[in-house]
């Protein structure tokens, strides 16, 4: 498997797609930094305790969308160009081919996330001087975000390794990430509803009709912990409803299940 990983890294670093994604992450992060500074200078921005902190918590969901494109095209190329045949003909186990792809895609996500963070922290600390988050908090945030992003990556790899078509993989992966993100947003908004609100007429505390309770609330809380997009939203908004230790378990479980399932399907496929 080492040989496959080395070959994949070599291909990735020569790939215009990879560098395009890296450049995109850098440009968007730098652009956000610049626009936040302009807003701060003109007084147009919203008051936040720390602009840099809020920017740091941003970007993970964007990376999930970028990874949907990257993984689909990177792995899909092996099918469209027929080069996966070279690996199998030479006797590499299909499980090793799968895992090598997963490892390299996960590494790509780490690199892109690192570019995003460095392009914020280094110039940002000069522009804003207002970073309040403790180092261990930032590290924990980064690790949790990385796990969530790689849970998505594991899903994309499973889609790509079993669909064999670059375009189908890209469409399905993008549809998936947007659909799941939308679901996460709905659940998050529902869970944020307070149980009691002040009536605008009587000024008394009344029960909020939009408050979700009972079985539905339990389900929403569960999904809020399980869905990687929900985890990212909670971390980005700094309003964690669930339990961050459970995030780790669920993300690892998603990666394990998707990888195992993907390998089983891939091993049984007749390739042309």
């Amino acid at each position: 498997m080492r040989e496959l990983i080395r070959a994949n890294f070599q291909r990735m670093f020569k790939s215009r797609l990879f560098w395009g994604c890296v450049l995109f992450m850098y440009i968007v992060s730098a652009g956000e930094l610049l626009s936040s500074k302009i807003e701060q200078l003109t007084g147009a921005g919203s008051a936040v305790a720390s602009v840099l902190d809020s920017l740091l918590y941003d970007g993970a969901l964007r990376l999930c969308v970028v990874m949907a494109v990257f993984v689909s095209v990177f792995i899909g190329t092996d099918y469209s160009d027929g080069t996966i045949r070279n690996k199998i003909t030479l006797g590499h186990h299909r499980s090793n081919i799968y895992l090598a792809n997963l490892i390299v895609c996960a590494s790509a996500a780490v690199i892109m996330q690192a570019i995003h963070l460095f392009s914020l922290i280094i110039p940002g600390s000069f522009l804003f001087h207002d970073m309040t988050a403790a180092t261990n908090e930032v590290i924990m945030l980064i690790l949790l975000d990385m796990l969530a992003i790689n849970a998505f990556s594991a899903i994309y790899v499973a889609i790509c390794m079993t669909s064999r078509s670059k375009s189908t993989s890209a469409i399905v992966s993008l549809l998936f990430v947007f659909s799941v993100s939308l679901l996460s947003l709905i659940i998050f908004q529902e869970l944020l509803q307070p149980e009691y609100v002040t009536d605008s007429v009587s000024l008394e505390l009344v029960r909020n009709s939009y408050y979700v309770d009972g079985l539905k609330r339990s389900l929403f809380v569960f999904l809020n912990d399980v869905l990687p997009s929900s985890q990212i939203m909670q971390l980005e908004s700094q309003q964690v409803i669930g339990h961050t230790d459970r995030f780790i378990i669920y993300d690892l479980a998603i990666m394990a299940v998707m990888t195992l399932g993907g390998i089983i399907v891939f091993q049984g496929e007749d390739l042309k």
Partner: protein
Amino acid sequence: MDYALQTDRLCKTYRHYHALDELTMNVPRGSIYGFVGKNGAGKTTLIRLICGLQKPTSGKFTLDDVHSTERDILKIRRRMGAVVETPSIYLDMTAEDNLKQQYRILGLPSYDGLRELLSLVGLSDTGKKRAKDFSLGMRQRLGIAIALVGNPDFLILDEPVNGLDPQGIIEMRELILKLNRERGITVLISSHILDELHRLATWYGFIDQGKIIKEMSAEELDAVCREYLRVSVSNMLALTSVLDARKLKYSVISETEADIYDEISVSELTHALDAENCTIFSMKEQNESLESYFVSLVGGESHA
């Protein structure tokens, strides 16, 4: 005899379609094995099974006497190269980068021999040109170069001259002959272009409807593609009874024509047919081509 590849009643079924039907074949080591068959006969399916792209429904095969289900088959596969249908190349990479990828996949410690491989296939001047800008012939040659990384003992080429111009076909033929002669590489080559195969192969396997109909050496094929006498007569019944009486091998082509494979005295034949009131319109000496032999194997009447 040593065999690079042996299959034993190999079957492959897709839903209800039997692509391979108890196919048994033997590829001698060091040979250029020409794999001949119609479209849909099962050539590419067999190649896919041997390369590990698909699993057989039943039956088995061995590569260098190692069973396909044994762990050691992985080591044997490292000594194999294949071009299956289309060349497996990264279109967005240069020829050199494509070869480097293959070196990495094989786990070779250095890129020794890379320049020589590019020279061997005539791609040493491609520079930074990406494979997507190559002509079909150049892509085919790059595919072969990739298959040659690691000095394989066994090379599988599925229709390597498809889409090549006459010059390209000649170059491909010379390359294959050179690899077999100088490096002793066993080559399994499937092709529709029978005349081209005739210039290359030292062994033949004829496949039809998923089965090997016949395997033979080039010498045996040359003996079969032998001279014969084509006669045109007025009474085929008379001719066949005369030939049967003399226990001569022949095959009826049409109502008035037949091919006689054994030696026969023309005077004697004329005399015998005259006694049966049969007129001979013409007599010609001819050779059987690989094409007509193939057609006779997969279809067409024969009394030979």
